[in-house]
């Protein structure tokens, strides 16, 4: 295990300590627990937005707390949910009477704990809490049928949900309205990933899965969850075609629809490769008659040092476009 770390059990704590030192103008923590990260710039009377999840996905999840996006993030151990107690501490800190919206990824541990925290916030603190669960990974399950629960995992596309909900809350919309925007963003977001190399959880010390030196796995999840198929590594253009076909096929699009696109590195993939994929994605979308409003590229949601990329797409209407473009400033994301 080749990592620049100290004791594996101090990994998350020391990472967080560094983070607070680096961004004192944007973030702090509450209740003496570094795992309860909150904004340093509370806005009076605004709906509070909280997320949370396991560590190991930087900049996700905590990196999007700041101005114009999220207000709090509870941080778990690597790939582990934070506790309901920590979520509750964040909730109490950021509520300013307008209620709190939870936005988090569709994972058992996170769901159970956020639900528990929401109940406690309601019963114990009289804080109204609503939740939106992001499940954008088209590779993880079939689309849910009308009225059924979405069983897809949440991955990089959650950033679009953060952005839209964050901007809506910043416009001083009500909890119900912010939730509606977040749900709309989530409903219009799709992601698909491909993995080339595994990652190592510091306390485990060995790769979470193995993959042949000439292989890739299309559709793998950000904790190494099994994907759609494993096969020989293909040229970037073919990978892009396969991934986009799945993404585009999942939402009914019409020619002329506008989208924002995120080409995301999973950890150890050079930016160059992301741009090489972006180039092909643009060609395909043009061919399909979709209009790209804006591209985002870089490491937005990682799995430690996993090799690979994901592509996320959000279908925009005027409202979502306005909120995507609204200014924001967080440790990792700046929209000017």
């Amino acid at each position, binding site marked *: 295990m080749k990592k620049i770390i100290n004791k594996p059990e101090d990994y998350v704590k020391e990472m967080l300590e560094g983070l607070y030192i680096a961004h004192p103008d944007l973030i702090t923590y509450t209740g003496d627990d570094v795992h309860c990260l909150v904004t340093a710039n509370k806005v009076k009377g605004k709906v509070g937005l909280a997320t949370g999840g396991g560590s190991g996905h930087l900049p996700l999840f905590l990196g999007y707390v700041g101005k114009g996006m999220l207000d709090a993030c509870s941080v778990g151990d690597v790939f582990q949910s934070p506790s309901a107690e920590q979520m509750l501490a964040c909730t109490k800190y950021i509520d300013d009477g307008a209620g709190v919206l939870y936005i988090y990824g569709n994972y058992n541990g996170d769901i*159970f704990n956020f639900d*528990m925290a929401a109940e406690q916030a309601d019963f114990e603190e009289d804080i109204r809490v609503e939740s939106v669960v992001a499940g954008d990974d088209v590779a993880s399950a079939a689309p849910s049928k009308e009225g059924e629960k979405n069983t897809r995992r949440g991955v990089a596309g959650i950033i679009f949900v953060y952005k839209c909900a964050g901007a809506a809350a910043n416009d001083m919309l009500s909890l119900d309205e912010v939730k509606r925007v977040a749900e709309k963003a989530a409903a219009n977001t799709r992601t698909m990933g491909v993995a080339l190399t595994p990652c190592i959880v510091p306390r485990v010390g060995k790769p979470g899965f193995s993959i042949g030196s000439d292989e890739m796995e299309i559709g793998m999840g950000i904790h190494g*969850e099994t994907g759609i198929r494993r096969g020989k590594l293909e040229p970037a253009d073919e990978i892009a075609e396969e991934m986009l076909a799945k993404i585009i096929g999942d939402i009914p699009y019409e020619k002329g629809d506008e989208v924002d696109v995120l080409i995301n590195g999973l950890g150890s993939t050079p930016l160059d490769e992301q741009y090489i994929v972006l180039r092909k994605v643009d060609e395909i979308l043009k061919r399909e008659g979709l209009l790209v409003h804006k591209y985002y590229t870089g490491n937005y949601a990682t799995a430690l040092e996993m090799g690979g990329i994901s592509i996320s797409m959000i279908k925009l209407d005027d409202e979502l476009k306005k909120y995507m473009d609204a200014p924001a400033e967080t440790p990792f994301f700046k929209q000017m």
Partner: protein
Amino acid sequence: MNVELIKRFLKEVSLIMVEEREHLIDEDSIVGDGDLGLTMSDGFVAAYDAIKDSDEKDCGKVLYFAGKAMSTKVPSTMGTLMASGLMQAGKALKGKSELDRKDVTAIFENYLEGVTHRGKAKVGEKTFIDGFYPAVEMLKSTEGEELSVSAEKASDAAMQGYKNTEGMIAVHGRAATRGEDSRKLLDPGALVAAYIAKGFYLSVK
């Protein structure tokens, strides 16, 4: 029966979880991410430690605080579900310092209720529920018998429930991504249910 039963129960369960730690890790490594041995041993030890020296006589409060300690210590899938079970059992018993036979059954009914409320799994979906539900049913249907006999039967029922998870298709958690392939496997969460039932039997035999 009083709060000492609760303490003995949690002690026995935590001892088993520590003993079976590696075994649970191995079982969860086949289906999931292999952390179940860690979370169950850490979690039940934390639950027991939180209340073992308490002077509290209210059985409900003791169960509730044990659950809270567990939830803070191990916020994993099973950690949170077990915490939810303990806390719900605690809510149901709040105010009671003496427990009759019905109260004992109520602990397990409410534990199940807490887990179900949180996890929304049904019987037959290859989860903890499939180990725990048969045990609760057994406790209910043998309320006329000696508690230790009844508890032993519940323990056996839970173990049988665990074994019956082979053949079921998983719809929750990591195992669910395997679809049809999941049938061949035993569910490690249901094994935890069997250990809890066994811990209870040991605490009353």
